[in-house]
């Protein structure tokens, strides 16, 4: 027989089991043995603390009353988790970097470490969550009553304790339980491995219980189709109301906001996260968990509606269906499932809230009241912290109970939950702005959250008291002071839409508008700007830590402490020489400039303004700030390096481009040159041909001479074309000869022989300097001779010295054979030294002074010599004249 005593005993036993799990897990985590605890699936299961007794009991009730609407509570979070890459990942990353411990901490950190904003967020969270805590108390109380049969099954008693007394007992028990459970120690990172393990265990229990009930219902109802058709036959048509209306949209928005803004979700998803990559598992696994949790909700609701007596509370179907079927074991399992949903929610929620309350409200007040006395030792601080946590937990559960007491006449679970959702959703605009909008300011965030909170408190929170307060009832009906347009459920006279949609729209709309408008018209403090940049550039600058907040009072000692750390003792001593008592403003100004030289102006300013405005400075904080500055400096150096690289690349490109343009110009000049070279013999040929054709009075001698000239010019033209083709052939690697061992000196002899005629004609000296006795190289004699003729004839042609002279000399040594052709002509200008060997190049100034024919020679010559494995170069000389040298390897 399932009696309340048995149930309570089982519940206590279950709590004991949770303790055991938490204890063992904590121990293992401390010994670093709990790799299992850090798996992404434990993390995902812990996130399932989202599914409370609202889900376990209330979803069925919601489905029975409002059809598909219950699904919106799970689809919103599904979408947020599917898109984890964009919001959750940012939240987790920034929170790890800034050691964020709660949602109040997050917003306060982003908006310049504002303690006022943190207090506001904490107060709103505590008030906003009270209905949610009440919901759990109500669910547990109702489930106990259902087991006892109070109401549905007359005859069973619960020792005369009424609903309120029961709820108070549950609240007290839960408070005790949570205090024992969550405040055994204080961790700097606010991570609770033991709690997470227990919560994950509870997630499995509640899912298993709900699935068991679902399968039982399908079995008892004769299958899915039978349940649905029986409901249809009974006229239970829960879909006939417009399912996908504005209320559906509003609930999706609310649930999506809640999964981000609920303090317990933030605690588990962000603060307890040990590895960012766990999100990629949770991204699909948590939606899958939600799907499983809501799989049987509709069949259970329909089966309950068709098989239970009219008037039975649909919120308790999960419990009453197995009870009425005599399945007491299953009913007990179901009770445990519901109990675990409620306990896990209360534990995590009150831990998260207590962190906020103690960190942002209790501790600052205690420190101020005691003036720091009694917290001198680390032990004192830790005891104070734990006590303030315990006090906070008790307070939170008390508030929950009070809300339950004042609203005990409303019967459904889901609407209570929605009130809380809407309350915490007021954080959403500020959170989104914190993550994505750099310009959002502290004043804007504070006023936006406050505006949203006021609208919510007026239109959502207050109406829940209408059954217990005549004043509220009157305001609901007529509006305050008879102002009808301020009626909570018909704000601004909008009566045609659902009250929930009404409050969701107006609160979030006014909230967002305030945030945007105030941000646009206010400015940020220095610290705010620094923090905003850190939040916005989260993925741009790796490893950026937070600039620490510095506390203290501005004595010379404090300033000296800072200066010594930043500047080093000798410089600090010199700077502080003769300064005593209260430091004058000029001195602080000078100090700031000194500090700015070391750590940058922004950091120096923030650092000093903090010290001067008065808070104690710790060594770590100074170091942290200096470290942060160093990262900024490294970052800018990195940027500089990158831009230097870019500059050099651009320069190289520019050079390449110039070279290409030069080659292009050279090519044009070359073609023009070739054209000139071809036109010259063509001119003679044409002219003499015309004379021969048209003149009848020519002597035989004249005729003979003209024909000879035509012939010579034709030969010249042919040679020119051969040169061009030869160069083209060389270009394409068609060398046209094989190297063989030759006596190079013979080629020199022949070249001198050919050129001496030209030299005589120009009345200049062609001297032969010292010669190598013999030089056997690998090459082709005619080509070598050709190259030498080219070099010597160029030297002769371009030589305009008073006593023109060209010398050819050769020598051997170190396995090499050198031939040099030197002249005392004008030489080659420095700028053209490189160019003269280029394929299409011709001396730039050559157009005027140099006779035709020099354009092709050097490029071809160099290629010919290279073909013989040698090289042709212009010796770098300073004196008058030029000296070309051919270097060939000796055989």
């Amino acid at each position, binding site marked *: 027989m399932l009696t309340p005593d048995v149930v309570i005993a089982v519940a206590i036993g279950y709590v004991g089991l949770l303790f055991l799990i938490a204890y063992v897990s904590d121990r293992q985590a401390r010994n670093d043995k709990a790799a299992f605890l850090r798996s992404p699936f434990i993390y995902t299961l812990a996130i399932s603390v989202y599914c409370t007794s609202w889900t376990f009991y209330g979803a069925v009730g919601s489905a029975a009353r409002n059809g598909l609407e219950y699904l919106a509570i799970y689809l919103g979070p599904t979408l947020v988790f599917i898109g984890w890459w964009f919001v959750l990942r940012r939240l987790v990353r920034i929170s790890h970097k800034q050691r964020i411990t709660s949602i109040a901490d997050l917003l306060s950190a982003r908006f310049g470490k504002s303690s006022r904003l943190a207090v506001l967020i904490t107060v709103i969270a505590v008030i906003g969550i009270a209905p949610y805590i009440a919901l759990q108390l109500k669910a547990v109380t109702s489930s106990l009553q259902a087991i006892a049969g109070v109401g549905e099954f007359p005859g069973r008693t619960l020792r005369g304790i009424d609903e309120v007394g029961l709820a108070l007992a549950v609240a007290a028990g839960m408070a005790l339980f949570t205090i024992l459970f969550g405040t055994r120690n204080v961790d700097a990172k606010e991570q609770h491995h033991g709690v997470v393990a227990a919560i994950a265990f509870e997630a499995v229990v509640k899912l298993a219980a709900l699935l068991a009930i679902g399968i039982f219902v399908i079995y008892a109802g004769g299958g899915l189709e039978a349940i649905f058709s029986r409901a249809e036959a009974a006229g239970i048509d829960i879909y006939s109301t417009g399912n996908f209306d504005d209320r559906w949209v509003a609930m999706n928005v609310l649930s999506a906001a809640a999964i981000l803004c609920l303090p317990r979700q933030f605690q588990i998803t962000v603060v307890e996260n040990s590895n960012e990559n766990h999100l990629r598992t949770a991204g699909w696994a948590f939606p899958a968990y939600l799907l499983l949790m809501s799989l049987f909700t509709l069949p259970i609701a329909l089966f309950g509606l068709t098989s239970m007596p009219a008037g039975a509370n649909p919120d308790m179907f999960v419990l009453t269906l197995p009870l009425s079927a005599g399945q007491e074991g299953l009913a007990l399992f179901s009770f445990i499932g519901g109990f675990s949903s409620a306990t896990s929610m209360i534990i995590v929620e009150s831990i998260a809230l207590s962190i906020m309350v103690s960190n942002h409200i209790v501790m600052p007040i205690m420190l101020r009241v005691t003036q720091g006395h009694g917290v001198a030792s680390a032990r004192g601080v830790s005891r104070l912290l734990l006590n303030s946590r315990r006090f906070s937990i008790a307070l939170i559960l008390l508030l929950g109970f009070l809300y339950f007491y004042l609203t005990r006449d409303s019967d459904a679970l889901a609407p209570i939950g929605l009130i809380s959702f809407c309350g915490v959703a007021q954080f959403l605009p500020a959170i989104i702005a914190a993550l994505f909008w750099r310009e959002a300011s502290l004043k804007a965030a504070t006023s936006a959250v406050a505006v949203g909170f006021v609208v919510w408190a007026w239109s959502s929170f207050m109406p829940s008291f209408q059954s217990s307060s005549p004043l509220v009832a009157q305001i609901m009906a007529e509006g305050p002071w008879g102002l009808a347009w301020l009626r909570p459920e018909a704000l601004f006279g909008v009566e045609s839409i659902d009250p929930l949609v009404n409050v969701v729209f107006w609160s979030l709309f006014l909230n967002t508008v305030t945030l945007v408008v105030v941000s646009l018209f206010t400015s940020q403090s220095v610290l705010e700007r620094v923090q905003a940049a850190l939040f916005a550039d989260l993925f741009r600058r790796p490893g950026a830590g937070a600039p620490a907040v510095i506390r203290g009072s501005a004595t010379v000692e404090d300033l000296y402490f800072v200066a010594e750390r930043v500047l080093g003792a000798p410089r600090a001593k010199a700077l502080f020489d003769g300064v005593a008592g209260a430091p004058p403003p000029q001195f602080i100004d000078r100090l700031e400039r000194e500090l700015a030289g070391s750590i940058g102006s922004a950091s120096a300013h923030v650092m000093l303004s903090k010290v001067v405005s008065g808070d104690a400075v710790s060594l770590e904080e100074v170091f942290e700030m200096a470290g942060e500055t160093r990262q900024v400096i490294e970052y800018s150096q990195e940027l500089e390096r990158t831009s230097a690289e870019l500059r050099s690349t651009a320069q190289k490109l520019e050079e390449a481009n110039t070279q290409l343009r030069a080659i292009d110009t050279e090519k044009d000049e070359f073609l023009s040159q070739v054209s000139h070279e071809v*036109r010259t013999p063509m001119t003679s040929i044409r*002219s003499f041909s*015309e004379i021969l054709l048209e003149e009848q009075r020519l002597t035989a001698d004249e005729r003979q001479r003209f024909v000879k000239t035509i012939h010579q010019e034709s030969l010249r033209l042919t040679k020119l074309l051969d040169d061009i083709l030869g160069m083209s052939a060389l270009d394409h690697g068609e060398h046209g000869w094989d190297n063989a061992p030759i006596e190079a000196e013979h080629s020199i002899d022949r070249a001198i022989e050919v050129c001496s005629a030209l030299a005589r004609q120009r009345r200049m000296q062609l001297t032969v300097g010292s010669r190598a006795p013999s030089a056997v190289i690998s090459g082709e004699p005619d080509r070598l001779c050709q190259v030498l003729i080219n070099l010597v004839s160029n030297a002769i042609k371009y030589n305009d010295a008073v006593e023109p002279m060209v010398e050819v000399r050769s020598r051997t040594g170190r396995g090499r054979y050198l031939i040099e052709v030197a002249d005392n002509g004008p030489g080659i200008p420095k700028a053209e030294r490189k160019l003269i060997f280029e394929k299409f190049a011709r001396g730039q100034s050559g157009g005027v002074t140099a006779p035709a024919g020099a354009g092709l020679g050097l490029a071809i010559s160099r290629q010919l010599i290279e073909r013989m494995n040698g090289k042709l170069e212009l010796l770098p000389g300073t004196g008058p004249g030029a000296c070309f040298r051919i270097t060939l390897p000796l055989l």
Partner: protein
Amino acid sequence: MAVDVLIAEDEPSILRSLDFILRRAGWSIEAVTDGDAALSAVRRSMPRVLVLDVMLPKRSGFDVLKQIRADAALRQLPVLILTAKGQAQDRRNAEELGADRFITKPYANAEVVGAVRELMGLAPAVE
């Protein structure tokens, strides 16, 4: 003594052909083979027409032309530019510098003779 035509041309075969056709046309001829010589010959011989190649050693044809146009005594001398560089830019240069005629090599003999005759203020001979 004054000559009818002064030819400045460094390419021997072309010089020979010009000398031949202009003599045949009945003019007295003097020939030089570089720019400096051309300038001094113009001053010395006061030719009626100058036939000037552009690509001359020592001083380019364009430079010679510039000097002539800058000299008050020589400014009126008709100049026929002969060049193997037939690009539009060269023609523009010649016109800007004050060349009276511009002929691209290879030329038709009649074209040169006609141009010289024109420059001498004579009507083109009817063949």
